[in-house]
């Protein structure tokens, strides 16, 4: 038997395969494709204090090897989450991480307190959403603001605190270091890469131009994520959860080899809605066939490579 389990602070995961925020809903929505409770964890859609309707206009644009989204954090808000979504997570025995986003420091504090009051075992701070006008992105790109935000959230939340980093920064190392010194238990990276899609139609002798500006995700951003994680793993000791274009077991192993302890699957859930469960099976099979008994052992070998 192989042991795929791991622990981030006191947060236990059956395996290192997690589904990424915004691509997997709030709880068991993928149950017609996957055994959702087999996953290491599900990260919920980004939750704000009040419900949000999101952005007007086209929200999705497919690009080579990925997609751009500008959803604008449409979500039901924390209260409906607690009333309607949380009971399903509990009933279905789904391990989950609550992803939270705010416009102000106070929003984050309040959300962290609510998470604590409800004994939610892990939260992921979205400080890096490129799709909302003010608020969370600003924290994510300014190391001092981020340090202060994470420190104060830390004071209000005792369980596992994960901070999700943006790749749209000048120094990944500086950002990661300040998050660690502010007391985070782990970081996850990367959020989407700022991007733009342009579509031109030539009609009646004139051009009609449609543009979609937002966050790029999917296979196309994997090299960006690999480089980001490689750099931050050299400067911080807290666990890193890798995100960015992960689709195959080979991708998972590559991210382990640059220092990730777990991975999140995002856009690939759209291409292959059963991918997350398949990756768990593939990982288990690989370990079994190659005599790795624990994830730690596998990750150690990969880090030495």
């Amino acid at each position, binding site marked *: 038997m192989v042991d795929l389990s791991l622990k981030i602070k006191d947060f236990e995961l059956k395996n290192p395969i997690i589904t990424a925020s*915004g*691509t*997997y*809903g*709030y709880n068991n*929505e*993928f149950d*017609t*494709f996957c055994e959702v409770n087999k996953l290491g964890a599900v990260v919920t*859609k980004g939750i704000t204090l009040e419900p949000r*309707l*999101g952005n007007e206009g*086209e*929200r*999705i*644009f*497919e690009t080579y*090897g*990925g*997609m751009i*989204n500008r*959803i604008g954090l*449409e979500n039901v808000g924390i209260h409906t989450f607690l009333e309607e979504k949380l009971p399903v997570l509990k009933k279905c025995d789904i391990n989950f991480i609550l992803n939270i986003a705010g416009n102000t420091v106070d929003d984050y504090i309040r959300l962290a307190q609510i998470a604590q009051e409800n004994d939610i075992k892990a939260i992921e701070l979205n400080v890096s959403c490129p799709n909302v006008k003010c608020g969370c992105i600003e924290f994510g790109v300014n190391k001092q603001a981020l340090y202060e935000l994470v420190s104060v959230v830390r004071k209000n939340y005792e369980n596992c605190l994960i901070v999700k980093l943006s790749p749209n920064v000048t120094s990944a190392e500086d950002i990661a270091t300040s998050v660690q010194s502010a007391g985070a238990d782990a970081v996850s990276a990367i959020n989407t890469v700022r991007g733009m899609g342009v579509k031109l139609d030539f009609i009646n002798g004139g051009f009609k131009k449609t543009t979609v500006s937002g966050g790029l995700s*999917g*296979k196309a951003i994997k090299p960006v994520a690999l480089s980001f994680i490689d750099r931050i793993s050299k400067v911080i000791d807290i666990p890193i959860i890798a995100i960015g274009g992960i689709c195959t077991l080979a991708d998972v192993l590559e991210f382990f080899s640059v220092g990730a302890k777990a991975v999140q699957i995002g*856009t690939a*859930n*759209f*291409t*292959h*809605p*059963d991918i997350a469960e398949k990756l768990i099976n593939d990982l288990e099979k690989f370990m079994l066939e190659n005599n790795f008994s624990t994830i730690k052992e596998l990750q150690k070998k990969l880090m030495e490579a």
Partner: protein
Amino acid sequence: MKKNHLGTIKNIQEINKNVYSIEFSSPTLEKISAGEYVSILCDGLTLRRPFSVANFENNTTTVLFKKRGSGTEYISNLKIGDKIEFSAPLGNTFKIENKKTLLIGAGIGVAPLFYLEKKLEEIGAETFFAAGFLSESDSIKHEFDFVSTDDGSNGNKGSICDYLEQIIKEFKPEKIVSCAPHPVLKFVAQTAQKHKIPCEVAMEKVMACGIGVCRGCVISIKKDGKIQNATVCKDGPVFNGAEVVW
């Protein structure tokens, strides 16, 4: 029941220039209703492509599609015997009611109405099927009750919208169902509302997840006096025409 299926192409035909009919069977897909759709994995692409069901019998799904970009290009190149991976059934359904129903399709929008017409005939509902196309060469062959083409090369000349009042007056439908490009849908829904005839419209939007989680495909609807978001992929694609905020 799991919703990811592996199917085999049974038939593929170019029925018009750039319009294809494809049939594929899968032992795991046993039922799909009119209005629901399938979402097909296309090699090399990130997002699956949604297509309405034009017919379904004996585990075999028929889809009619128009070649538009790389996804439909990929599907059009599949051969009999090739494998096809798809999610289904997705979305909601047309209501199958024993009412005098006017079906209005424009272009490739006629596809889901074929399956609906069949289901309505099975329960003995009277239907009148009106279709609009750009031209004769663009027309999809079927026993329609009324056809118009923009250039008049097949049936009546003009947009299907130009004839809507006349058709309503003569057929006196108790219900209207439409699938067509956005401007036509809007016109049909507003005309239906004017005549106080219940109307179902099948909408389109670029999709990512297909199951209501990513919020990429929302439209605005007005329900209980409140404007709210609805997903075309899960709450739709079939909507009450009077509730859509056009």
